[in-house]
């Protein structure tokens, strides 16, 4: 009888040699006369254990990791195919504390199933959400999304139900559903993992949205930095059409939904929804002034629902298990679960899906196990390149939209980037301006010119040229950018800059005060 091995094809696993490991395992098993079938899965998101190989045994799955090429023969000799003992044996993956302590509503299939198999997806509960949705009318679906409390996971935290309602009520012969899969924030990879590991969850979520809003066409706008996700999505869509869960007459309902993946071209600003729509239309990714909002005039001027990957992928669970069940997770006005991405200088990095409300410190210490370098944590950036840097004394802030805002930070897309005590916060503040200057769409002056001025002024601070006066200038510049920018690119760049200056003042006065003549 053939033994099934599960080996991730997630980009992290590939980046750590998973393809070579898979080939060596197959060849090594063959040499030993063992019959193995290899299923390429996504990742469970325990990234320090990748490549993590799982084997199906009578007692359930047994995991080994991190498996490198040189371990393969040793593992096979130790009886990997029957769950044999070995130094790399991790046992039942679901009992690994990092995973066991999580609340995986959205990610429960990721890393478990064959990502491009509709059959496997359905065998693990897939399409129950859509089946339930098809029994409701459009108002019923939108009501479920509203009552779940789901807020947009792309960064702004806008209530999903309100947006869905607006598109549903818009009158038009053509509407669109667009998934924002531009995931440009450093420290984030939840969208990537989902698209590589459980793409049908996204497809199902978008299909439910299409049914609710009356849209018949949809696009996934994917960043070009994710070539693996691109291939997986294309394969999943082809399989979905074949299986009758996409295209005409979905699940025999008479409803139509045509879905396509489109690649971005390396522009961070195209994650901003109006810039994304311009790009999707084939133009430069210049931000549009709002109103009109995309929900009323979006892609090609038609009503368009734009949501993040994590927003759409929360929906099938909500429709399957009920809005109330989802809203039972979380705190305050941040309901449900947040797929937290723990990254940077961290020992145990990866995906941590938990109800809103856990503190940054708990995530970093209890899940992350401290820094990878073994040095003390000094700064933590939350919510991507436009998010604030937190010092140690603010790490007890809970991950909750309002609590983070109260500390002049943001949840964003849920990325947490840890830095140890070798970080130079003046360099980080300078980088925030540099990034904004590189990625600005150029439409408004505070952002286009301000970011470049910010880099120049930070260079002076770093060189020790009148640091106090120049820091004052940086502060004024930040105020202008906050108040005068059209979108959050220019509007939020001050957040990492000002948090660095406020919480780490000593890093901005390292060079001492040079005589003004040096300027």
């Amino acid at each position, binding site marked *: 009888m053939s033994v099934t091995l599960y080996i991730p094809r997630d980009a992290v696993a590939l980046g750590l040699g998973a393809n070579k490991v898979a080939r060596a395992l197959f060849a090594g098993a063959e040499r030993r006369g063992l019959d193995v079938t290899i299923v390429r899965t996504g990742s469970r998101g325990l*990234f320090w254990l990748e490549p993590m190989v799982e084997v199906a045994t009578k007692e359930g799955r047994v995991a080994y990791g991190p498996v490198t090429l040189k371990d393969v023969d040793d593992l096979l000799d130790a009886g990997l195919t029957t769950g044999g003992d070995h130094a790399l044996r991790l046992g039942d993956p679901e009992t690994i504390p990092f995973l066991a302590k999580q609340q995986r509503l959205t990610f429960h299939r990721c890393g478990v199933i064959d990502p491009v198999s509709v059959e496997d997806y359905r065998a693990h509960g897939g399409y129950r959400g859509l089946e339930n949705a098809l029994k409701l009318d459009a108002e019923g679906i939108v009501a479920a999304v509203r009552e779940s409390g789901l807020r947009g996971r792309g960064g702004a935290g806008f209530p999903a139900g309100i947006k869905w309602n607006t598109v549903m009520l818009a009158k038009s012969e053509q509407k669109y559903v667009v998934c924002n899969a531009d995931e440009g924030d450093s420290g984030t990879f939840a969208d990537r993992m989902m698209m590589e590991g459980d793409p049908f969850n996204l497809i199902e979520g978008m299909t439910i949205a299409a049914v609710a809003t009356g849209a018949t066409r949809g696009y996934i706008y994917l960043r070009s930095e994710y070539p693996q996700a691109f291939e997986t999505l294309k394969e999943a869509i082809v399989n979905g059409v074949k299986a009758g869960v996409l295209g005409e007459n979905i699940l025999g309902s008479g409803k139509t939904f045509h879905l396509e993946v489109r690649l971005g071209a390396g522009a961070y600003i195209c994650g901003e929804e109006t810039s994304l729509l311009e790009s999707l239309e084939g133009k430069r990714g210049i931000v549009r002034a709002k109103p009109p909002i995309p929900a009323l005039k979006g892609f090609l001027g038609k009503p368009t629902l734009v949501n993040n990957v994590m927003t759409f992928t929360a929906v099938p669970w909500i429709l399957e298990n009920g809005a109330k069940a989802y809203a039972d997770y979380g705190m305050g006005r941040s309901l449900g679960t947040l797929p937290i991405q723990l990254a940077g200088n961290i020992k145990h990095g990866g995906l941590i899906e938990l109800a809103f409300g856990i503190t940054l410190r708990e995530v970093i210490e209890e899940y992350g196990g401290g820094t990878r370098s073994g040095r003390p944590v000094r700064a933590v950036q939350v919510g991507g390149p436009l998010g604030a840097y937190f010092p140690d004394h603010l790490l007890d802030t809970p991950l909750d939209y309002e609590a983070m805002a109260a500390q002049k930070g943001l949840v964003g897309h849920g990325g947490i980037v840890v830095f140890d005590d070798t970080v130079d916060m003046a360099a980080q503040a300078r980088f925030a301006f540099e990034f904004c200057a590189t990625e600005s769409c150029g439409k408004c002056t505070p952002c286009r010119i301000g970011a470049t001025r910010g880099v120049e002024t930070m260079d002076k601070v770093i060189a020790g040229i009148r640091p106090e006066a120049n820091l004052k200038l940086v502060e004024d510049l930040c105020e202008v950018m906050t108040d005068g920018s059209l979108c959050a690119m220019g509007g939020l760049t001050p957040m990492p800059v000002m948090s660095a200056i406020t919480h780490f003042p000593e890093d901005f006065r390292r060079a001492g005060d040079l005589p003004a003549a040096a300027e």
Partner: protein
Amino acid sequence: MLRHEPWSAERASGIIADHVHLEGATLPILHALQETFGYVDSGAIPLIADALNISNAEVFGCVSFYHDFRKAPATGRHEVKLCRAEACQAMGSDALHREILGRLGCDWHGTAKDGSAHVEPVYCLGLCANGPAALVDGEPVAHLTADALEAALTEVRQ
């Protein structure tokens, strides 16, 4: 190893024709051209403009707006994209990049002295828990070191 066809207007017209039916066809066309030829030749601009009934300036504006599109053929044998974003910075990417560029003898957007690769900066590859990260000819590399990159450049050549 990157393999590209030499520029051909005829071939380009065929590629454009394959995509004109798409809503918002410009980016898919530019991607397809770049995949085939390794860059977007200036000769393609009027062809796209014609096919999509837009101005040359609009097409050119698009090519120049996006970091991905090259206006001249890539000169290195491999394409190396190094992540410069924060999570990789936290793992020492700045110093690593100085070392890599030093060994290759080129700057950002440049080609290695030995012609082995051209180097582009990128901002995040979604490998942020396993940095520093890179893409070599589209293949992810995690826990990047200068030696590992050298090995990767030799290996993918075969």
